[in-house]
């Protein structure tokens, strides 16, 4: 069955080539068919492969198909091989399935856009490179997918290129992710010189032999890979690009900046988990970064007025949870949260897209309101998504995945109470801003009239996604709920078990605490935004609150910090050195020559007496040389 594997990435690639080359001459209908069709086809093929993989799992635990040797230079010969095991199966499934849904949605959403074919070409290219990223068997091919994904996010963020702000946001995204990629490239070099190869299975096999636990080299490699992941997944130091990336169309935000690309970091760390396990310090750093990010992003989300920026900060925060899970060693929990998060975040973005389009591209939540009965489908699907985001206990899938992370944050071998407490606080804040968003958008009186209702093509994917956001959680139930852990058994073929601390009391108290924090958050938002809006007015008076508000609004001032620290100096140096100070050196030489010329041509004064004197001086010099020597 693995000879079908190469079809999965090539279909989006082929459709990209068709649309890019012949985009202009193909009618819009055919563009939609090719664009959305190719991704759906590869989704179906993934299903077939998945079923055959699950029903009769291959002996080696993975399908592998080599297409051709990329290059062969001395000891370095990376091959183009596609490698499918349990982990990448899940990722491929998520990418193709959600990708297909988003493509179908965007057929409706982008219907009246003039660059129709270019949009689908870029989206297909993105799906191809993301698939390549997860199916790569060696790190170089992974790097190719990694950069390809960065390119597509650049192209799609800057899709509406007339407005220079979009262009600026696209460049900011590309450059910041590029910083991470460079660190990762250095990591690749280190790996190559340590192990002599970049093929991931060999690297993971050799790592424990070559390095002892906590080895210096292991930590460095892990940190470099982490830097790469942090860049791509918009974690703490390099997270400023994601909120600006909302300049792109909503399907783009849904697919790239919610479901797939931003989780590439998670995939990388999960894939190279052996190296992280070898250096506990690196793993601890991953956890700390995760926690810090989820807390900061959560608070920033609280203060946003643009609906998409709220969702963007919430994505950063949720990925923070995944990093926390990876940090504490809860590998399967992180991947489980990734799957669930992909569903409800895609749903939220698509629904937000529909809302914005309905209100003639109005992004400000305070100008929306009262959509509850005007857009019923959108309302209900949005409600399901937010419930899952806020992790409403028992019914929403989000509860199961986030609760597991909270539990392991305390119970796992390298978990500790501080991480758990901040994560709990994060859950409370998540519930807070989710409810705030729900109330502002759907309840209260309608401030802007409805443009036109979203068509059938847009609502069907929403409903499917809503279904999954509710029921997907049941494939991984917590221990005390009947021990039904289908998802982690599959993943344990690739990722190690999570080792729990000894003598830990039952999980129930933690679940109760988590639900209490969710309900508390919902209630607080209900009071502030629905019951007594005047409380907010009171808050606005106090200077300290307003300062805090602006501080959180600007994403904890990271943008200003980077601007002052890095961007301003470089631009300043570049501009003062515009015409190349080294050129002054050569202008100096010409100046000296011309000055010499002028002084010498002065000696040619034209008077015969001066020439005779020159002759005599020459004679004197010759004779004096003779005297001296």
């Amino acid at each position, binding site marked *: 069955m693995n000879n079908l594997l190469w079809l999965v990435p090539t279909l989006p690639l082929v459709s990209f080539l068709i649309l890019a080359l012949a985009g202009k001459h193909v009618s819009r209908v055919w563009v939609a068919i090719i664009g959305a069709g190719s991704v759906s086809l590869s989704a179906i093929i993934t299903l077939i492969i998945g079923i055959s993989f699950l029903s009769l799992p291959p002996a080696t635990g993975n399908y592998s198909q080599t297409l051709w040797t990329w290059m062969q230079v001395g000891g370095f010969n990376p091959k183009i091989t596609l490698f499918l095991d349990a982990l990448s199966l899940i990722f491929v499934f998520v990418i193709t399935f959600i990708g297909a849904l988003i493509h179908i949605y965007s057929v409706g959403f982008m219907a009246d856009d003039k660059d129709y074919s270019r949009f689908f070409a870029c989206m297909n290219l993105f799906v191809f490179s993301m698939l390549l990223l997860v199916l790569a068997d060696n790190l170089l091919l992974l790097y190719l997918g990694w950069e390809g994904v960065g390119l597509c996010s650049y192209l799609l963020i800057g899709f509406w290129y007339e407005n220079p702000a979009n262009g600026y946001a696209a460049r900011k995204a590309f450059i910041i992710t590029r910083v991470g990629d460079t660190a990762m490239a250095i990591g690749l070099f280190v790996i190559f010189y340590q192990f002599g190869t970049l093929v991931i299975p060999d690297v993971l096999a050799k790592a424990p032999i070559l390095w002892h636990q906590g080895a210096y080299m292991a930590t460095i490699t892990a940190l470099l890979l982490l830097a790469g992941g942090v860049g791509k997944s918009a974690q703490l130091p390099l997270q400023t690009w994601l909120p600006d990336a909302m300049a792109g169309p909503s399907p783009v935000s849904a697919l790239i900046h919610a479901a797939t690309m931003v989780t590439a970091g998670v995939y990388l760390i999960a894939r190279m988990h052996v190296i992280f396990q070898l250096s506990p310090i690196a793993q601890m750093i991953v956890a700390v970064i995760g926690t810090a990010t989820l807390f900061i992003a959560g608070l920033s989300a609280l203060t946003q007025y643009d609906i998409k920026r709220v969702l963007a900060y919430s994505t950063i925060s949720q990925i923070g949870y995944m990093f926390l899970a990876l940090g504490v060693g809860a590998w399967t929990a992180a991947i489980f949260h990734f799957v669930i998060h992909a569903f409800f975040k895609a749903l939220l973005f698509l629904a937000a897209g529909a809302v914005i389009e309905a209100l003639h591209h109005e992004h400000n939540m305070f100008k929306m309101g009262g959509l509850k009965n005007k857009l019923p489908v959108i309302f209900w699907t949005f409600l399901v998504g937010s419930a899952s985001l806020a992790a409403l206990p028992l019914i929403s899938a989000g509860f199961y995945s986030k609760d597991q992370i909270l539990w392991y944050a305390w119970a796992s071998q390298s978990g500790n109470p501080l991480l758990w407490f901040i994560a709990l606080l994060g859950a409370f804040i998540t519930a807070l801003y989710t409810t705030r968003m729900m109330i502002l958008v759907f309840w209260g009186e309608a401030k802007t009239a409805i443009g036109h209702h979203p068509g059938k093509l847009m609502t069907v994917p929403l409903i499917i996604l809503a279904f999954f956001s509710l029921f997907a959680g049941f494939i991984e139930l917590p221990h005390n709920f009947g021990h039904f852990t289908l998802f982690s058994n599959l993943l344990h073929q690739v990722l190690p078990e999570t080792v729990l601390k000894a003598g830990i009391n039952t999980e129930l108290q933690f679940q109760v605490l988590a639900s209490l924090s969710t309900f508390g958050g919902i209630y607080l938002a209900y009071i502030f935004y629905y019951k007594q809006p005047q409380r907010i007015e009171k808050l606005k008076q106090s200077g300290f609150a307003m300062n805090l508000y602006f501080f959180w609004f600007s994403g904890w001032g990271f943008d200003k910090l980077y601007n002052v620290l890095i961007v301003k100096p470089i631009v300043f140096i570049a501009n003062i050195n515009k015409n190349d100070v080294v050129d002054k050196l050569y202008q100096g030489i010409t100046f000296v*020559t*011309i000055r*010499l*010329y002028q002084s*010498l*041509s002065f*000696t*040619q004064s*034209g008077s*015969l007496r*001066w*020439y*005779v004197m*020159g*002759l005599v*001086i*020459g*004679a004197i*010099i*010759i*004779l004096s*040389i*003779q005297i001296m*020597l």
Partner: protein
Amino acid sequence: MSGNDFFALTPLLLLAGSSVLIMLLIAIKLSHRVIQLSSLFLFAVAFSSLFFIQKLLPYHIEPLLIMDGFSVFIMGLIIFSSLVVNILSYIYFEEKEDSPKEYYVLLFLCTLGACVLAVSKHFISLFLGLEILTVGLYALIAYLRERHHNIEAGIKYLVLAAFSSAFLLFGMALIYLQTGSMEFSMIARSLTSLQSLSPLFLTGLGMMLVGVGFKLAVVPFHMWTADVYQGAPAPVTAFIATASKGGVFAVLFRFFIMIDGFRFKVVMLILIGIAIASMIIGNLLAVQQKNVKRILAYSSIAHLGYLLVAFMPGSMMSIKAVSFYLIAYFMTTLTAFGIVTILSNKETDAEDIESYKALFWQHPVLACIFSSSLLSLAGIPLTVGFVGKFYILAAGLQAGLWVTALILVISSVIGLYYYLRIITIMFAGQKSILSEEKKANPFFYRVSIIALSVLTLLIIWLGVYPSVVISFMEYFRLK
């Protein structure tokens, strides 16, 4: 004076005889065209006579002259350059002067003087050859009496030349006093007897260097060059730049080879100083010069500096290098000044660099000739100048003169700049539609262009395939 002597001296006799013959022709009031053609014929005869005396070489005419391979080669060069000057001077003087008759007599005499220099091995013949050359040049420089500064250049050259000849004489007298003989070989014999260098001999040599330095226009004594080159008529400038310097350099070379002057550290130091100074100052003086004649004057100073670099090692390689470079230098300078002659008309010489604007689009052939000669002066491959410069660098480096070679390279880069400046001005501008002014006598105009294009082809051909001349050079051994 046996029969063989006469036969050996045929070239000199021919030159002297033809000057007298030309005077006879002038006496019977023949037209300028006839005189010019006959002088051309006589030059050709003199040049061919050189081939007849090949079998006699090396022939000593005691005590003054010596006819060996090297002197025949130099005489060939000098007569060849005067032949080219002769061709060029017809159109130049036809326009400016109604009937320039004495010009050809003086030209013969100057060539005679230069040839005597080439063959001399005695102070007297050196002095006489030099004086015939100089006196002849006085009149040639000031030939067009009323026109643009000829007189000024003439008087300047006269006073300075006489001044430097006095120096030369005084130096010779001191050497004669010290060594007791005026013949190079005798001087060499007396030098070998005494180990250390007597101060009297040294001062004599120094004073002679001043005199010779003036004629070669090397740096401390170079100030007259620009004014005389600019003042004198263009063909005469060509003659000064090539034949007169060639003859003087030949005799200096012979003198130093015979007395093996290369072993005296002091003299060598002075020569190195002069060479370096003239290379650098020669090139620097021309950097922003607006007058083409003055640029070529300064570049000839620099080229003499290059020649001295090859001269200093005094090895077999340097003889070949000097001879080859003389060929290259002669041909290129003749072509360059030929172009200046052709382009000058009745009123003005083609001096100012602006008069060469867009030359490439008006007279493509002339512009090609001029740019190839400039590139050869600059030493760019595909031209004989490059092979010459390579030869000199080889000779210099073989003797380990690393510093001078480096300065040669740096100064030739400065030189590159002003050669390129002229070429760029020739390319600038559009093809102006002003009518082609009718040449006074198209026939001679075309003859001179043909002569120059032959020279250019020689420059390119020798640049690409120099081995025929190099093997020919093997033949001119200096005893």
